[in-house]
Structures are given as C-alpha cells and as structure tokens.
C-alpha cells in the first residue's frame, strides 16, 4: 500500500454552509443557485465580500471586494451577514467525518483539511469521502490527491465544484504547469507582479527559471515558490494543528480620522469583535497589536505589547490597544485601523489559576452574556454609550482568524 495525501476543501464554504442551513430551516431559496454573497452590513458602505456564489462571480463580484463595489457590479446581489458560529460547526463536523477515514488529519483552515492515508485505491476513498460529506452535511467539497501536501492542495483547486482530482508527479507538466503563475500556492499579488515583470507568466515558466535568479530577486520566498512550482514539498501532515495563531480585525473608515475620540471609537469597535471571537474560541491572548494606515501617501504604523497575564476581556484589550495607539500616532489623518491578538492559549487552564479573583470572574461572566445576546439578537443589541450619536458602528470590521500557514509548518 502506498501513502497518499488528500486535500479536502469545501466549495464556497461560507456561502454553501449558509445555504444548507437556510434550506434546513425551510427556506425555498438556495443561495448557491442565485447571485449571492456573504459579507458585512448591506446598509453600510463598510464590510467586504467574504464568499460569493457562481452567479455572483459571473456578474463580477470578487472576494475581498468592498460591498458597495460588489453591489455596483451586481445590483441584485443577495448579501447575507456572516455567521461564525455556523462556520465553526460546519468545519468541526467536516473534520469529524474526515477523521473517520484516517487518524492523520490536519485542519489547514476553517474549510480545508489535509489527510494522510495509506491505501490501494485513493480515488475510491476520495469519492466515498466526498459523498459522505455531501450526504451527511449537505455541502460539496473538492478533493485533491497526491503524494505531498502542496500537490494535493494544487490538485483540489483544479476544477470546482464537487470534483476529485489527482495531481501526481507525472501529471505536473500537463495539469499544473500551464496554469497562470498566480494560481500557485504562496504566489500573492505582489509576487505575481514581480514575476510577470520578468516574463514569468505560468507555473511551468517559474519551474524552469533558475532558482538562483529567483533567490536574488526575492530571497527565501523565491526558493520556496520555485520548489512549489516543481511540485516539491516535504512538509508532514500534522495532527491537531487546528490551533488558531491569531485573531485580527480591521476596517477602512468612511472619513479621515484626525481626532482621538473617533480613533478610540474605531479601535473599540474593532476590539469588541476580536474579543468576542477570542471568547467564542475559548481562548486568551498574550499579545495585543494595534496598527493604522494614513489617509494620504499610504504608510502607517503598528505596535504590539506582550501582557503579563493573558486576557479575553474587551476592556483590557481595548485599554492596551489605546496605550499603544497613543504611542505611535503622529496625529495625522487616518483611514484604516487594525486590532489583532496573538499568542493564544485555551482559557480553561487560565480560569483555574484566577479562580479566587471574584471581580475577574464577574467580568468574564458579563462578557459572556453580552456575547450571547449579540450572537442571538444581533450586534446592535447592546452597545456602549460612547457610540451613541457617534455615527460609528459599535462592532466593526471584517474579522480574520489566522490558521497556521503551510510554510510555517515546513
């Protein structure tokens, strides 16, 4: 029996998960069959598209696009607000089904897993897995099969949705090399631009470029993508690496912010969501990071601080974020704010050591109840008095949970 690596990736995850959930609750519209997207608040200009249906894609809606732009491209677009609790439930259930096929499963992101399995017929296994997920959970996945993680991941990207692909070493030339270079894992927008400037347009061209040249041009990253373009990767499938590395949240402001009151409100509104997600994951953070971008000529600053004791308290994170912000702000106009927490630990361990601190327990209970109300009845249910009449939403931004990247595991 040979060892194979499978990459399992939910098709338009957020969107199809919401669609299945709606159908289960009696909706007569399948979001997957209309022009629809998951994103921030439709009535506000803020928020971005997080996922879109095929019809929306055809109309020109792009992931990461601001809502107002998406609505301009597709005025009939149905936009649904994100529901992170649902996504985590879908992600967990998908994981648990995959774990019935193999013991060695790595959660790579909320909708992607790697699975290692020694077997005779990987195609049959992949179809079984795909069908089990569809029958049980109601959504489709793509599966890529190969002998390493990189090729398995590139394989699952080949044609969507609801497909199984192999991408073995002897298929690289035919299946992967003709693809545009930006479709290679770890080739982002900046790298793509550089490569195109040197006439490297396909993955195949990158594979045949002199590695020393790439190394000169972009250091270790150049070497990395050269290896990937040649299908070379030896990173192991790591069990239980579902730990989130950090939770970040950022927003572009609708006007230039040059006054500390508004700055503090934006930072608070971002912190509210970060802290809520932190608590929803039952985690505490050791590091708080704050950043801003200037309104004109780009540029910006960021600063972080390590805490003596970890926290999941909104007020504590906010207080530190504001201290950091005051240290780095030159009072120039700002157009973008970011708040991030890292070095996360599970909250259970912490709880025990502070058990006798009555006040802290009280604060944690209060936070928990506010979270419950907001999840159940919407983020506007409870808000701090400072937001009243400010014109700023009390909870802001597009949340981002960072799972470990493949490179960091090599």
């Amino acid at each position: 029996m040979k060892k194979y690596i499978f990459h399992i990736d939910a098709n338009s995850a957020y969107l199809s998960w919401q669609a299945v959930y709606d159908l289960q609750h009696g909706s007569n519209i399948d979001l997957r069959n209309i022009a629809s997207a998951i994103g921030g608040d439709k009535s506000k200009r803020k928020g971005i598209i997080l996922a879109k249906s095929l019809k929306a894609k055809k109309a020109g809606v792009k992931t990461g696009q601001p809502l107002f732009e998406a609505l301009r491209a597709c005025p009939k677009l149905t936009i649904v607000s994100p529901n992170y609790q649902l996504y985590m439930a879908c992600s967990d259930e998908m994981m648990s089904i995959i774990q019935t096929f193999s013991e060695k499963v790595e959660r790579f992101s909320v909708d992607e897993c790697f699975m290692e399995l020694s077997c005779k017929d990987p195609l049959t296994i992949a179809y079984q897995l795909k069908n089990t997920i569809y029958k049980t959970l109601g959504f489709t996945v793509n599966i890529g099969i190969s002998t390493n993680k990189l090729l398995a991941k590139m394989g699952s990207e080949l044609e969507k949705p609801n497909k199984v692909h192999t991408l073995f070493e002897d298929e690289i030339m035919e299946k992967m090399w003709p693809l545009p270079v930006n479709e290679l894992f770890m080739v982002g927008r900046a790298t793509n631009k550089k490569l195109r400037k040197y006439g490297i347009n396909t993955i195949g061209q990158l594979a045949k470029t002199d590695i020393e040249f790439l190394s000169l041009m972009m250091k270790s990253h150049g070497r990395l993508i050269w290896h990937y373009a040649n299908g070379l990767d030896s990173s192991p499938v790591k069990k239980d690496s579902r730990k989130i590395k950090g939770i970040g949240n950022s927003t572009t402001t609708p006007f230039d912010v040059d006054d500390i009151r508004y700055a503090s409100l934006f930072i608070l509104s971002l912190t509210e969501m970060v802290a809520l997600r932190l608590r929803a994951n039952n985690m505490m953070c050791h590091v708080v990071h704050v950043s801003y971008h200037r309104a004109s000529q780009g540029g910006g600053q960021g600063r972080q601080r390590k805490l003596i004791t970890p926290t999941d308290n909104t007020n504590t994170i906010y207080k530190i974020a504001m201290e950091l912000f005051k240290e780095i702000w030159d009072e120039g106009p700002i157009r973008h704010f970011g708040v991030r927490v890292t070095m996360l630990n599970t909250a259970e361990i912490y709880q025990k050591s502070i058990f006798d601190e009555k006040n802290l327990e009280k604060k944690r209970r209060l936070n928990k109840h506010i979270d419950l109300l907001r999840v159940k009845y919407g983020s506007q249910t409870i808000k701090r008095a400072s937001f009243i009449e400010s014109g700023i939403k009390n909870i802001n931004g597009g949340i981002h949970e960072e799972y470990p990247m493949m490179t960091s595991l090599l």
Partner: protein
Amino acid sequence: MKILMKSVDMICVSNKDGKISPIKYKFVGKDEQIHIVKINKILERNEERLAGNRMYIYKVMSVINNSKRVYEMKYELATCKWYIYKM
C-alpha cells in the same frame, strides 16, 4: 408534501435512554385559532446533521379534522425547538 417549517409549542417525553418523542402540540392556524394536535403514532425516526446542525426528524400520524394525516416534524437539538416540517 409541502415544506412548512412552522414552529410549534410541544409537549414531549424524554425517556430514560434520552429518546425524545412528541406527544401533542399547539399552534396558531390561519384562522387565528389555537389548535391542539395529538401525535397518534410515530412511524419513523431519523436524524440529520446538515450544516453541522443536528435535527431529529419524525414521520408521524395525527387525526386532524377527523381524518388521518401523515406528515413530518423536526426537533432542533441546538435550540430545543419543534417544527411542523412537511405536511
């Protein structure tokens, strides 16, 4: 059968093994009257985990307006809500 997904107030039994069975429910009809409907028989039990959300599905029989009706009810574990699913 048509999908209704109408929520109802339910009296149910949870036995020693944790098995939940619907007994009778109350709902407000189109006529704005309150109707009480007894579950005369449970014909089938199923479970689904769509979108990771667990629901029990019951195929049941009730006597409504003097005629036997076979239809489906759903119980959502996460919210403890009962629904008339398909009728």
